[in-house]
């Protein structure tokens, strides 16, 4: 898990631990200091998610099975006004931004617990796509599609049995 920007270490540890618990793969957290300016679109005042996703594998020298980039900036893809995260089905990389997961953006009271919960769900969700999972109809499954933040809160942070069956065999015990 590569984090871009200033994140609380405890926050990152918790996200990594929750992801590791769900996937039963060891999750390593790395801080990344890449310059994000080249990905900034001044017209939209957002960062290009597609290009960041392609750039992500070059941000680490390690040969990780999957890479998820965690950002603080507002992400977009050309055709959408914003994204919470992005991944290419069956690919190696995924990205997630906490920018639109914060309650403050919607005029609500800051809630770090909720932010952590939303971030965990989005990281697990986007990584799920890299393992070939598509959106799930099960409302409680973490792979259920969420286009607005309340939908993230409604779903759980775990895979439903059907999605879990599609994941590769996990190498470590929980």
């Amino acid at each position, binding site marked *: 898990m590569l984090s871009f920007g200033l994140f609380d270490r405890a926050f990152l540890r918790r996200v990594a631990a929750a992801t590791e618990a769900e996937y039963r793969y060891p999750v390593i957290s790395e801080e990344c200091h890449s310059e994000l300016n080249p990905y900034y679109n001044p017209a939209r005042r957002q960062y290009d998610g597609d290009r960041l996703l392609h750039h992500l594998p070059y941000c680490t020298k390690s040969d990780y099975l999957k890479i998820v980039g965690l950002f603080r900036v507002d992400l977009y893809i*050309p055709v959408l006004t*914003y994204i919470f995260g992005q991944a290419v089905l069956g690919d190696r990389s995924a990205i997630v931004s906490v920018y639109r997961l914060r309650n403050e953006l919607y005029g609500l009271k800051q809630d770090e617990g909720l932010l952590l919960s939303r971030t965990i769900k989005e990281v697990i969700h986007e990584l799920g796509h890299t393992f070939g999972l598509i959106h799930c109809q099960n409302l409680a499954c973490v792979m259920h599609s969420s286009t607005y933040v309340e939908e993230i809160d409604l779903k759980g942070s775990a895979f439903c049995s059907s999605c879990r069956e599609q994941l590769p065999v996990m190498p470590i015990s929980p």
Partner: protein
Amino acid sequence: MADKISILIVDDEESVRDSLCNWFIEDGYSVECAENAKKALQMLEEKDFDIILADIKMPGMDGMEMHRRIKTLNRESIVIIMTAFASVDTAVQALKDGAFDYITKPFDPDDLSHLIRNAAAQISLKSENEALKRRVTTLENVEDLIGRSEAIRKVLEQVENVAQSNSSVIITGESGTGKELVARAIHANSPRKYFPLISVHCGALTESLLESELFGHEKGAFTGATFNRKGRFEMADGGTIFLDEIATISPKMQIELLRVLETKSFVRVGGNKEITSDFRVICATNRDLKTMVKSGTFREDLFYRLNVVNIAIPPLRERVDDIPMLVNHFIRKYCTSMSRDLITIEPAALKQLEKFEFPGNVRELENMIERAIVIGNGKEIRLKDLPLGREVRDSTVESLEELEKKHIEQILDKYGWNVSRSARALNVDRVTLYNKIRRYNLKQKE
């Protein structure tokens, strides 16, 4: 549902195509992309897509033009127009041209998701509607007209020929031959099949009631007419009216009916407003209308107006070959409706059914099978379950000698050719039985 829906994305910008493609793949849709309208149209020649997302501004042919071409290809695809420039005029034009919706780039993820969900719901409704239409067709299909005999084939052929026309039809046949089934089959195979088939049993109604039933009535037209009521002709608008037992209608009603058939317009009882209705008439009778015309009890002009096509249904005794199929059909029908296991019929019972006269025709056979299933042993229909009485018909008249020979043979078989026991059963002495065996040259079967 989602994994069955196919989407074609048409946009000249690679990043848009890729983003949308990725987005829809994650949702489980089947997605293909085209970089211009020309390629999209080529792809549409080879394959159908449920939803087409087309950019309005593309080099060469634009999205609006492509949409018009898609419509001329008579494709059922739902077209959603995308544009980077929000313009009410183009949006209105796209919708006027039949586009499903219009969306401005960049889309809000929720709007896009909502739009595709709506389109998917429309596709689902459409396919459900088609399935229901097919189901309606099946329900009213000719499947109840069972038989492979030449006689029933001829009827089915006539049904097929006459269904597509608007001509009036008279169906003749004995009671219980299935005249209403034929009328339903004609209606179900006609272009009017999605409109109602209205049946009126003319014989069951008095003249005044029939008049009110056929033409409807206005409130206060007679005692008890407390509200306006549509008549059957009015209800049959766009569809078919089936007049059963047409021979029973009174001379007054015959005149009224003739007028309605000629003008396709009528006035409700107690009303003064002319009502028009587009219906097709199918009549049925078990009487010989020609004879009635000759005797003056049925109007000649009405007869010729109705008798454009005549379908005569043969009685069951003239299509004995169809009895086994009909029996199996009714066994299936009633076992299913009574939630019982499918049963069979013993050969002897079937043989007797084939010899039965069936004055009540198919209806009588149907009732007989239903009764046999109810009172039977739940495994097979036995001869004793069938109320065949004495109406079993035998094609050959047997002599007394022939009957005696058969009877002796049966008794001998029953007692394993033990002559003493057989003679006792026949109430004759052994010598007489030996003489009879010799006389009829009876031999024990191997």
